[in-house]
């Protein structure tokens, strides 16, 4: 009898224990919750790592869930800092957020390394993604049908790309993306890169930080996509990386933001993106 009761006790303890683990343990110190764009979340995690050495008491929680969710979270106060990898939309302005540009990101148009086309104008890029130009021979390449590879709807990189290139059209009175409907859609910068790398007649776009030898970045209007060219404003397919706060910032928050914009923070950002200071 004793034994069975003990077993029963253990059983219940395990169940409650498992439930409690899910709740997570409370850590000492202040927690700063940073929520939003996955593009910004990547450097933010590195910033968090570096900052924890300086301020071990401050606990920074980074969640990459997308720009729109980041703006929303900053607006309704579920996050202390929102992250966005695009300009704030008109409809989001009314949330009254403070916008701080922490870096710039450039989007590179990429093709297979074997492709002989190395330069396109912004108009040609637009025509290719809209499906008006369908063969590489029309832009000086081989006689091959172009396979357009695009990010999924809702992606910050895609909306930034569409906005900069002007890939918008009117459809039944609504403004919709004018990327050719037959385009192959892949989720994430990595998947787009891998697909372009495996298709000789493919064309896609990825964040500048994702470029490596498996794909070849195109010059746009004769300008190479690079950090220097983006900062100088010559390379035009670029976007800001924003952090958003609402209302009066606490001292801890201000300190963290100063760290991001300071020398060390900007150096960390410069590993993948283009620092602003």
């Amino acid at each position, binding site marked *: *009898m004793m034994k*069975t*009761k003990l077993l*029963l006790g253990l*059983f219940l303890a395990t169940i409650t224990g498992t439930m409690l683990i899910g709740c997570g343990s409370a850590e000492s110190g202040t927690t700063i919750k940073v929520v939003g764009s*996955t593009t910004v979340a990547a450097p933010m995690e590195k910033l968090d790592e570096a900052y924890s050495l300086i301020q071990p008491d401050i606990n920074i929680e980074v969640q990459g*869930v*997308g*720009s*729109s*969710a980041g703006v*929303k979270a900053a607006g309704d106060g579920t996050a202390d800092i929102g992250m966005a990898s695009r300009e704030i939309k008109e409809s989001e302005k009314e949330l009254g957020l403070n916008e701080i540009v922490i870096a710039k990101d450039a989007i590179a148009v990429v093709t297979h390394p074997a492709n002989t086309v190395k330069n396109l104008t912004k108009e040609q890029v637009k025509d290719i993604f809209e499906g008006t130009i369908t063969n590489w021979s029309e832009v000086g390449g081989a006689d091959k*049908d172009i*396979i357009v590879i695009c990010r*999924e*709807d*809702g*992606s*910050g990189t895609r*909306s930034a790309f*569409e906005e900069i290139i002007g890939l*918008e059209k009117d*459809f*039944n009175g*609504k*403004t*919709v*993306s004018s990327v050719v*409907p*037959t*385009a*192959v*859609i*892949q*989720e994430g910068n990595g*998947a787009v890169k*891998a*697909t372009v790398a*495996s*298709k000789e*007649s*493919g064309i896609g776009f990825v964040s500048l930080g994702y470029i490596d030898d498996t794909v070849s970045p195109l010059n746009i209007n004769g300008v190479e996509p690079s950090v220097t060219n983006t900062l100088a404003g010559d390379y035009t397919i670029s976007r800001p990386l924003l952090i958003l706060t609402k209302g009066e910032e606490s001292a801890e928050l201000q300190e963290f933001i100063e760290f991001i914009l300071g020398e060390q923070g900007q150096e960390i950002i410069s590993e993948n993106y283009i620092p602003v200071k």
Partner: protein
Amino acid sequence: MEKTMKNIFWLCAGLTVMCILFIGGFILIKGIPFFSHTNLIEFLFGQHWMPSGEIFGIYPMLVASFYATLGSITVGIIIGISTAIVITQILPTRLADMCSKTIDLLAGIPSIIYGFFGLMVIVPILEKHFGGKGGGLSLLAVIIILSFMILPTIIRMTEVSLRAVPNEFKEGAYALGATRLQYIFKVQLKAAKSGILAGIILAIGRALGETMAVMLVAGNTPLIPSSIIDPVRTITANIAMEMAYAAGVHQQALFATGLILFVIIISINICMQLLIKKLERR
């Protein structure tokens, strides 16, 4: 003591049922509000999926999912049932055992590995031989990958039901002068049909619900495919791909998509259960 343990078991069983109710309820609550934006008919039969303009029609994806499931199930049934017959009836025991174990291994491979294999091996082969708008990323690639994935389910279920057919049937058939093939096709398969059908239902569920592997090889173009080498987007891929960044109506639309998928899978299950019952009664 016995009573307490009984209660605990009840609690555990209750938890499982609660999970299903919660998931169903959650999808309903998240998905239903969407239908004030687009009505059900427009949503189901709308030809355009343009979240940027808040135009949501999942017809192309329903069609793609239907073709992909139909295609893979057809291939799966033909190859799967034949394999099961070979394993149970024709191969010597030791070889059959090896075959059986290999198939089990096939069932244990994670779906992302199937997808990766498809992307790296099957898609380039298709691109070389057929080309197509998606450069090999196509409905055909999806069907091939899904066929691989559902084979173990069909083979295993068929194998088990074939083995469950009483030996008397065999003796009876042979006594009446049936050949081996006549026995297999006219007696054994018929006697095992409810088990085989159950396997097919499981396979349909898996084919319809598979996401990761499909997403990698489908090309994910939200258009009705005009040929088998056109890129397609299935219902599941639509949800998985866009959920990460979706907000507002777009997110609701994805939940509504999930709701439709949920309803389809439940209806298929119910229909098939009824069919099995009917078959068993005969």
